[in-house]
């Protein structure tokens, strides 16, 4: 096995470089034995967060199951860019049925494996946020409720990107989409709506719920492996920036995902049986403006007629997340004020 020599340097990103890790802690992608579950040559956009997230998640699932997984896919970007006829990028058994039924199809696969005694073969279902929080929500809810033995991964790019960037129930407030235009007194998506799927999943008390971003791929891999070590319904919600839909540079995908976490807008945590057990703390808290201003979907907040009032409302959301999940470490325990 070829390994790259270790160089002890680090760019100023707070990322733990793979080369600083021991061999067994390294990402599966550094191994020549990686599964390449989704192979090169697919037709995702440059800088696609979903392609990156899916590659890491599935190869991690392949490693932890000894190559014994079946993947079910909802309709969406991942399905379209990976299987343009007559090609397929999938090197794992893969089934696409419809937009809204991936959780139920996965339930069927799991049932068939169980009845045939194939207990070592594991089921991973994947969908975008539309296929998860909107059209697939009924089937997902049923899968959670029955505690079917499926790892469901939502790649959340906060909108219907495959159909041309329309709003979903995962689109954040004020964001421009093709169906939440930046016109009128409240431009972009409305405040006070949307579904927080990880919290909904936790309310079901399923064995495992976690969030991750493509900014910390080690964390994503570890969460996949943790999920794969369990049975029952498990839910992983991965934030995957979309350069096309978010109006961001292709080279900024990782950076933007990191800022989503560092602002507090996207809390990264994991929960067992409905209880939060671990939270990825914010390492260097940044104001939401830093995250918003590099995405054209928020350009209307910073242009000739800036809307600091709206930015402030988004900051409030981040602050609420920080408080709810305890995302910021108190500077020191003796500085705490007890009232």
């Amino acid at each position, binding site marked *: 096995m070829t390994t790259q020599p270790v160089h002890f340097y680090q760019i100023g990103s707070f990322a733990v470089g793979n080369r600083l890790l021991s061999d067994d802690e390294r990402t599966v992608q550094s191994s020549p034995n990686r599964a390449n579950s989704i192979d090169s040559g697919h037709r995702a956009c440059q800088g696609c967060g979903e392609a990156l997230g899916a590659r890491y998640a599935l190869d991690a699932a392949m490693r932890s199951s000894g190559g014994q997984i079946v993947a079910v896919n909802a309709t969406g970007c991942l399905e*379209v860019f990976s299987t*343009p006829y007559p090609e397929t990028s999938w090197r794992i058994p*893969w089934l696409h049925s419809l937009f809204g039924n991936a959780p139920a199809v996965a339930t069927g696969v799991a049932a068939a494996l169980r009845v045939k005694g194939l207990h070592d073969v594991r089921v991973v279902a994947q969908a975008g946020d539309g296929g998860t929080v909107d059209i697939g929500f009924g089937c997902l809810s049923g899968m959670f409720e029955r505690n079917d033995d499926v790892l469901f991964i939502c790649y959340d790019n906060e909108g219907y990107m495959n159909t041309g960037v329309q709003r979903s129930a995962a689109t954040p407030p004020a964001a421009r989409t093709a169906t939440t235009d930046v016109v009128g007194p409240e431009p972009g998506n409305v405040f006070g709506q949307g579904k927080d799927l990880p919290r909904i999943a936790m309310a079901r008390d399923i064995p495992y719920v976690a969030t991750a971003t493509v900014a910390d791929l080690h964390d994503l891999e570890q969460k996949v492996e943790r999920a794969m070590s369990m049975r029952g319904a498990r839910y992983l919600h991965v934030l995957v920036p979309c350069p096309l839909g978010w109006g961001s540079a292709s080279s900024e995908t990782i950076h933007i995902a990191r800022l989503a976490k560092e602002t507090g807008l996207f809390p990264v945590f994991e929960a067992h049986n409905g209880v939060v057990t671990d939270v990825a703390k914010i390492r260097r808290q940044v104001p939401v403006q830093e995250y918003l201003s590099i995405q054209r979907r928020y350009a209307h907040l910073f242009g000739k007629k800036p809307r600091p009032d709206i930015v402030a409302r988004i900051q409030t959301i981040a602050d609420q997340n920080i408080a709810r999940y305890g995302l910021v470490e108190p500077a020191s325990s003796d500085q705490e004020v007890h009232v």
Partner: protein
Amino acid sequence: MLRQIEGSRAVAETVALCRPEVVCAYPISPQTHIIEAVGAMVKEGTLAPCEYINVESEFAAMSVAIGASATGARSYTATASQGLLYMIEAVYNAAGLGLPIVMTLANRAIGAPINIWNDHSDAMAVRDSGWIQLFAETNQEAADLHVQAFRLAEELSVPVMVCMDGFILTHAVEGVDILDQATVDAFLPPYEPRQVLDPADPVSIGAMVGPEAFEEVRYLAHLRQLDALERIPVIATEFEELTGRASGGLVRAYRTEDAEIIIVALGSVLGTIKDAVDIRRELGERVGVVGITSFRPFPGDAVREALSGASQIVVLEKAFSVGFGGVLSTDVAMSMQGEQYVMRNVVAGLGGRSITRRALEALIADAVRGDLPALTFLDLDHDAVDRERDRMAKTRRSGPSAENLLRDRGALSSSYPRSES
């Protein structure tokens, strides 16, 4: 063994003999007794190994069946009416993917107005979905067709829907001979999938196909249905050799040898039509019946052969295409191109309205006299319809027609009469 048994129970016990490995259950009248009985057999262990999944909707039921079938498990579910429509996207998808799922359709009307009783609107709504659709005339045939359905579906990798009239068959208790396990096992080999999700041999199922190959994929599905036209009679013959019972096949003719008038129909109403024909035959009227068992694929050649010689064809159907007329009659007409005959279309039994032998006798008498119009709605209360048309003409806010008609017929309290100002 011949037993007095409810139709649903007969189907459930026969389905269990077919050793389904995954069964998805969601309740809807009038199929619910079937899925309840299968569930009990799984829970008590008499049907094993089998995974019985209580799902949250019919859409999920068909989706679970899709996942299970693609993983190589023999998969079964049952539905009716609104349930079939709620799963329709997955119904098309199962056929498009070539997954041999078997489903019982307990035929029921489609709302609005909501109505739980029998007609064939649900089956007609999915006639273009790519599923094979077999119609049972009796409970015995409904039970037997399920054994043949699994065999046919798995041979061809095409899903099969066994249609049986809701309540008229599903809830009727009559003598049914339930096969024994050895006979079913001899007839139905274990499921060998043509495509399967297997980590040892990974394939992509359900890939995107653009204009470059879509038409070919769809045409292959058509060819598989044409193959079914060949296989359905063969399978029915084998079944008869094994069990001594004639069940299934493409079409079945009754007293058509010298018939001038032939009535064509689907499902349980064939029994009543045969009774009416027997009576009119005694009066010297040359009338016969052709029952179509395989509605999809449509056996055009067999229908043409069965109807040849008739000068008048009366297609009686429990569904119609609103704004046009008969559905089955269109298919029959397509099969009869170039023949000399008169076609009459009778829509009957919608929403469970009884189709009585007396009404059918009158219908035959009309046909003999040449008095049948091109399209008839059997036993329609034209006066009630006219009164509602009048109300609609007089008053802009005439209200919901369904409620008005119920009040008109005295079925609804008229304590709060709508003013006719």
